[in-house]
């Protein structure tokens, strides 16, 4: 039940972001799907007591792989799917907590949280880049074998 609620809400939230980013109407459902899978992976790993940074990395990697498949299938730029997909992973909550602690003059806690938010957003970007690099490697190997 817990997982089901999370899947439904993440699907709607990602599709909603597709509307805000003005993604093509046909791709809204796919945006929602990508976001749902990413959030599912993240929540599942966090439930298994994995660190939030590692979970974000793996979830972002999954999102990028699915987005690449979709981009190839529908001949659209990959950014449409990957952007809507990673939005749920963006550490908004932690960044907010950090800001709140800054305001309340608890700088030790605030710096800790800010560093964590920075690590998570770095992990998301690394996850996206790794999948891109792997994709390029695969493409090069295919190209060579054809020659």
């Amino acid at each position, binding site marked *: 039940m817990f997982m089901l609620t999370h899947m439904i809400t*993440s699907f709607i939230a990602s599709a909603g972001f597709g509307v805000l980013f*003005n*993604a093509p109407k046909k791709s809204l459902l796919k945006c929602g799907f990508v976001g749902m899978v990413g*959030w599912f992976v993240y929540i599942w790993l966090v439930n298994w007591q994995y660190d939030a940074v590692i979970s974000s990395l793996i979830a972002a990697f999954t999102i990028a792989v699915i987005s690449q498949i979709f981009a190839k299938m529908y001949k*659209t*730029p990959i950014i449409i799917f990957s952007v809507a997909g990673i939005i749920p992973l963006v550490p908004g909550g932690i*960044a907010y907590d950090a*800001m709140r602690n800054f305001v309340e003059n608890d700088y030790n806690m605030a710096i800790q949280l800010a560093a964590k938010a920075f690590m998570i957003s770095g992990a998301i*970007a690394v996850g996206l880049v790794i999948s891109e690099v792997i994709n390029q490697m695969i493409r090069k190997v295919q190209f060579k074998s054809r020659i």
Partner: protein
Amino acid sequence: MGKEYPPTIEVIEICLLAGKIMLQGGAETYRVEDTMTRIAASLGIPHSHSYVTPTGIIFSTDGTEPAKLIRISERSTDLYKVTLVNGVSRRISSGELDGKDALARLKEIESADYTFPVYQQILAASIASGCFLIMFLGSWTDFIPAMIAGGLGFVSFIYVHRVVQIKFFSEFIASLLIGIIAYFFVYSGLGTELDKIIIGSVMPLVPGLLITNAVRDLMAGHLVSGLSKGAEAFLTAFAIGAGIALVFTF
């Protein structure tokens, strides 16, 4: 070679226009550069150089023609236009479109407005806010407050931005309003967790696209655009944080 290429000036114009639309729509820097060189190559200029930053594009053909510069002042996120320009560039590469048609099509894309109607955007923002509240482990009683706060925050973001053309200011006002509304919901007993409501309703304003694009640009070696996008993302996050912080100080 039986194929006739359009004059160089026209090719430069096509490339710059395509690059401008893509950059304004929020495409990654490498994609903009790649598209421009690809269009130029298929229209008869094999060696061209482009230098893309978030605030301007410089494009030069490896010849006697002067390099041209285009200034980008307004940036938003419009993935539909990015898709359309991508389609045009594909069709140019495959030879379906010649120079004149491509230019006309690009001008049409540039002037058209494909965005969703404002009420749909507001609806999407408020529903997304409610869903984020649930995803951040909030309780269902706070769902409606988060929807209202997120929706009104987004409305104020759009309308303040129309009046004052400074992004920092409109984001600041929007998050301030979200903080005040959330506070009143909790104060009147309709909402329970102030933190969760604020986090959920602030999410539509969070610069997620900018942050990831910035890090990707940095890793791809586009240092200037990566750093400036990072600065823009930081400024947005700071505006949101400052707006919320102001509520807490009272």
